């Protein structure tokens, strides 16, 4: 169970720097999930670890061994690609055993390793088939099998499940979790999928524009995002962001007038945050599931239902609350997203009262750094 250490890695293409100095360490046996918007450099970083890209500066170490300039096959890493990348002219068994064959291992050893991987992944009955004869899920299992037989120090996954349908994806998610527990290997996993990130990761690395925004355990990141980017990126529907201005500040708290709220609200800020001054622009953040039930002390906002997404067990409402708008979501038209943990008999156009507990607000300063987190309700 080796560790993987990324040390100030920079990767520049001719005119473009895709990775602008990234450092983190995956501890032995960790399942690190990298997330971030498209084009932020996740694949580039993964490919740099694999040795498929030459990094411009920095170092990569596995268990302290510097592999920055090692050949891809000498690094002790195996990679699973989004499009499976199975060799179409070889059978499943040949695909899985190819690395051992290239390493010049005896046939009996290869056969044993292939059989073992096939058993773990439950693809024994497909060993003689060619990739063309497999379904997407089976193909990805074969690709994972190919990684397993190499017994790598570090597994790298680049969106391995994104070509699969939802049902298969959740099944493979569970299997990958089982595989991780079984192999106890260090894994780095890139995905677009929030659910994959939240459920599989021991730690999540949030990347943006070639940099790491924050690293932490899934719930830590969700509850205590360091900045507005992480707060907006993790969570679906996206956190509601409301523009505001500081009208009073002192001690441990500030008073903020939010656009569209009838009254200013008082918020405590984190002890280690810098106290903003009067007149500063700030952003209030409210997660869709943090709307209140109409308890005393909450602010009632009259609104109108714009869109209802009934998901069966739960419901997502997009509400038009007049001047109270979320400002950075193009798809939402400024509508506030609210989550109800039940089925709701509402239709577009119906009136609705949103209830907001001021204590549920996140607060971000003008530079989008988090000033306060709401207390997590247990």
């Amino acid at each position: 169970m080796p560790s993987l250490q990324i040390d100030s890695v920079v990767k520049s293409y001719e005119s473009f720097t895709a990775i602008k100095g990234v450092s983190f360490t995956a501890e032995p046996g960790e399942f690190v999930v990298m997330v971030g918007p498209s084009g932020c450099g996740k694949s580039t970083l993964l490919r740099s670890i694999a040795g498929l890209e030459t990094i411009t500066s920095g170092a990569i170490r596995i268990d302290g061994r510097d592999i920055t300039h090692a050949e891809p096959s000498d690094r002790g890493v195996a990679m699973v690609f989004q499009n499976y990348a199975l060799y179409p002219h070889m059978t499943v068994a040949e695909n899985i055993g190819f690395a051992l064959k290239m390493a010049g291992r005896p046939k009996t050893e290869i056969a044993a390793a292939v059989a073992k991987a096939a058993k773990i992944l439950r693809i024994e009955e497909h060993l003689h088939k060619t990739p063309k004869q497999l379904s997407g899920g089976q193909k990805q299992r074969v690709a994972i099998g190919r990684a397993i037989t190499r017994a790598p120090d570090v597994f790298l996954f680049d969106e391995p499940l994104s070509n699969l349908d939802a049902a298969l994806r959740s099944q493979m998610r569970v299997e990958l979790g089982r595989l991780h527990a079984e192999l106890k290997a260090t894994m780095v996993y890139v995905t677009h999928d929030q659910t994959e990130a939240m459920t599989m990761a021991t730690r999540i690395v949030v990347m943006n524009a070639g940099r790491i925004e924050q690293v932490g355990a899934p719930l830590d990141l969700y509850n205590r995002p360091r900045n507005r980017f992480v707060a907006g990126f993790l969570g679906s529907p996206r956190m509601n962001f409301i523009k505001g201005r500081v009208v009073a500040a002192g001690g441990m708290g500030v008073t903020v007038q939010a656009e569209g709220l009838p009254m200013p609200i008082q918020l405590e800020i984190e002890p280690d945050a810098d106290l903003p001054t009067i007149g500063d622009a700030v952003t209030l953040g409210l997660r869709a599931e943090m709307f209140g039930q109409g308890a005393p002390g909450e602010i009632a906002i009259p609104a109108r239902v714009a869109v209802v997404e009934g998901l069966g067990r739960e419901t997502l409402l997009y509400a038009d609350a007049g001047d109270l708008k979320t400002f950075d979501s193009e798809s939402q038209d400024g509508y506030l997203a609210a989550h109800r943990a039940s089925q709701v008999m509402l239709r577009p156009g119906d009136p609705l009262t949103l209830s907001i507990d001021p204590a549920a607000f996140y607060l971000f300063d003008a530079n989008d750094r988090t000033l306060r987190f709401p207390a997590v309700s247990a």
Partner: protein
Amino acid sequence: MTSRYRLVSIGLHLVMTVWTLFVLAPLCLMFVAAFKSQADIFTRPLGLPKTLTFAAFERAWGIGIGGFLFNSLVVTALSVTLIVVVSALAAYVLARASSRRMQALYLLIVAGFAVPVQSVLVPLYQFVSAAGLLNSQIAIVIPYAAYGIPFTTMLFYAFFLEFPRELEEAARLDGCSRFQVFWRIVLPLSGPVVASAAIFQAVFNWNEFILALMLLTETRVRTLPVGIYGLIGQYSADWPALMAGLAIATLPLLVVFVAAQRHFVRSMSGLGK
């Protein structure tokens, strides 16, 4: 709508039929004439042969068609092999290189495709003659290769550009060297493009006339097109034998073409995809 579609379809079929007949007619005339007598060919040019004799084929064979056939086979096989091997390797390197210099090199190779044979006949003759290679198989194989490589490199280049990189990357992680990636992954999956390149060059070199005429002056080393041409003067044009010789020369290509036609068409539509 459907009736209009049918009309267009019928029209297209008609055009194709006429075109096919137009292309096939000379071929058929050649095969038929090979069975006729000299007099018949001129008095009833479109008629069928009176008797079915292989006399013309025997005469053609008797004056050395067999030797020409052998020479053509050797020259074509050697030049096609050389062309495919060199072009595939070159195109792979060029398609995977990103440097400006390699791109310029590729442009130069493509430009070589535009040099007409006629313009270099004299210097080429001087080269080959100075090297003491006149009247040898090498003398003709090397110019054939030189002429085939630019086009074939383009063909392979287009194919390799489209080749899925992830397969190669997976192979690199699995422990393949660059050459092993090419040999074990890329080449086995390049069947269609190799086939079409080989057929294309085989047809071209099998039929090539001018260079062969210039560089192979002794009967001993002549290839089919030049050898058959030789029949005209020597035997005051024994037309049935000439036609029989041409028929013999055409048959191997027809067989190869029909056998590999599927590959060929697939690869040509989209230049090697």
